[in-house]
């Protein structure tokens, strides 16, 4: 009966209830859409950075993160291979890399270059380098030619078949020099990368840096990215702390994590503004309902209804309004977010180019994440519960005779 009473009470003034429910609905839809976009954007950013930069997890020399030089390369020996092999089922694939700065030259022209030794088959799994080739071909593991970025090729006026000279410092201060035929030209959107990248087959790069069987990073791509923290810690436990460290992408890119946290704070703050507005809407409606029915409450208390019973009815009424709004919000937000996920709005013009430079797709990337929907529902429920508890408290303090005379 209390539920029936509460249900009918909220429909005493249909228009007011509908307006309040609508305000909950709009706040829910706006907050959910905003956070679905924010989550989508962050996932895209994270995925891009992970694929282009660090991978989900890396094994490095213990000092490489603080001082990234070839002197802090790790020996890719049996101990590392065995440790990795123990987690064979949890690891999708590994990507070994060795990289260091050098001077790239052709005749009298020189440019700084980031020389990276890779296994092309493994590297393609993480960032499909071969798909970005504009001329020539990607080397295979046993080839000995170089692939260079288009910007660098243009700066040095290098083309397929030309000789690239590399001069730098190798492992333990050895002078690194090498001459490599340019076999392929690859294009990157990010200017810095496009103007400096030089790729060599891993063995050739190790030879060039005089770092046989050594790596700067062993990237590990797990089967389940949600398990990277555990995987990192278990890998670390099987490696000698003095020489090796297993780091997650979050540890490797603290700036990006900070940026993502800041974005989260901003988006959550905006969502909360919606909720504060809607909270006051519900609060106003409930207060009006409360004062309109003060005499009725006085009478109900007079005839023997307990304050707690009256309070429960008030609480149910508030929660019902919140539930109606949230249900309507979920039913509205779900198809909207789904449509934007399936048919994302595309950036155009300079903005699109700017985003492309970072290797990201120039779209508003919405995602359907049940946690976002559920968390927003919890938030609305929490707000309505607070208002409901206030209503209960107000009902507890009703002076029976004054209310009945109202």
């Amino acid at each position, binding site marked *: 009966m209390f539920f029936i009473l509460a249900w009918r009470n909220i429909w005493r003034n249909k228009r007011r209830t509908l307006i309040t429910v609508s305000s909950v609905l709009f706040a829910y839809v706006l907050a959910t859409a905003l956070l679905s976009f924010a989550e989508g954007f962050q996932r895209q950013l994270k995925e891009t950075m992970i694929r282009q930069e660090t991978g989900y997890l890396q094994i490095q020399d213990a000092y490489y993160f603080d001082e990234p030089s070839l002197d802090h390369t790790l020996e890719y020996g049996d101990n590392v291979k065995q440790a990795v092999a123990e987690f064979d089922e949890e690891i999708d694939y590994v990507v070994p890399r060795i990289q260091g700065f050098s001077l790239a030259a052709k005749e009298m022209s020189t440019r700084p270059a980031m020389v990276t030794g890779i296994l092309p088959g493994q590297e393609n799994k993480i960032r499909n380098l071969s798909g970005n080739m504009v001329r020539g071909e990607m080397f295979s593991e046993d080839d000995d030619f170089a692939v260079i970025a288009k910007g660098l090729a243009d700066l040095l006026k290098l083309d397929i078949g030309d000789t690239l000279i590399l001069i730098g410092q190798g492992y333990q201060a050895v002078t690194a020099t090498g001459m490599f035929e340019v076999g392929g030209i690859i294009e990157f959107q990010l200017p810095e990368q496009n103007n400096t990248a030089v790729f060599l087959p891993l063995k050739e790069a190790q030879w060039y840096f005089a770092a046989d069987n050594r790596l700067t990073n062993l990237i590990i791509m797990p089967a389940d990215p949600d398990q990277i923290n555990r995987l990192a810690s278990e890998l670390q436990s099987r490696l000698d702390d003095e020489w090796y460290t297993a780091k997650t992408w979050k540890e490797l890119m603290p700036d990006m994590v900070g940026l993502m946290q800041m974005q989260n704070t901003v988006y959550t703050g905006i969502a909360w503004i919606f909720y504060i507005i809607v909270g006051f809407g519900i609060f106003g409606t409930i207060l009006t309902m409360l004062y309109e029915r003060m005499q*009725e409450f006085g009478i109900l208390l007079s005839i*023997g209804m307990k304050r707690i*019973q009256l309070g429960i009815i008030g609480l149910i009424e508030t929660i019902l309004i919140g539930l109606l709004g949230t249900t309507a919000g979920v039913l509205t937000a779900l198809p909207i977010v789904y449509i934007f996920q399936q048919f994302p709005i595309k950036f155009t013009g300079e903005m699109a180019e700017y985003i492309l430079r970072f290797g990201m797709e120039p779209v508003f990337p919405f995602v359907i994440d049940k946690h976002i929907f559920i968390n927003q529902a919890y938030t609305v429920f929490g707000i309505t519960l607070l208002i409901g508890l206030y209503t209960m408290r107000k009902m507890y303090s009703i002076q029976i005779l004054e209310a009945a005379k109202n």
Partner: protein
Amino acid sequence: MQTVIKTESLSKTYTNTAVPVHALKDVNLEFKQGEFTAIVGPSGSGKTTFLNVIGGLDKPTEGKVVIDDVDIATMKESQLFDFRLRHIGFVFQAYNLIPVLTAVENVSFIMLLQKKPKKEMEQRAREMLDQVGLSEKLHVRPSQLSGGQQQRVAVARALASKPDFVLADEPTANLDTESAFNLLDIMARLNKEENITLIFSTHDQRVIDRAKRVITLVDGAVDKDEHFKRN
């Protein structure tokens, strides 16, 4: 006859006014089972205060209100809620039905608070509405009933829980003559048939003419206490 309510040296003074108001002064009264009593007096004479105090809605400044051998003036608020629910029926001037409940639901409501079984509750509600002549209006909401009909539902509600006595604060004040007579007929019949104790505060001569006992309050004190023989 058994005494239902007994007041001893009952006084009520309101001190939250500029000048203290003595709403009740040394009221000593006894109400027997089955009495039909009208409390009369000019405005401000203390009628409503008296009903509020014996109904446990207000506390006396001094004196006792003994109901069922218990002085309700000493009860805590939480005990009073339960006491009112089980011992007292209320009828108010402005009907005060719950607008979103039907007639039968309004009558059942108090029994619901008393946690009566659903079947018994429905049966009793229908029975009471039948007694007040509203068996055709069981599922009608208050807004679709006339003032007289609403007050009859209120009477059914007050009596449904089988209280020891019913307090009615000017129940006919908002009713036309026909509705008022109709209501009084019903209440007189229930008083006679079910031996229910009825205490009215009223200005209405139609009520006074039906009452078997008329207590006149003046300035918070009992001025007259008259008994009449009525059919």
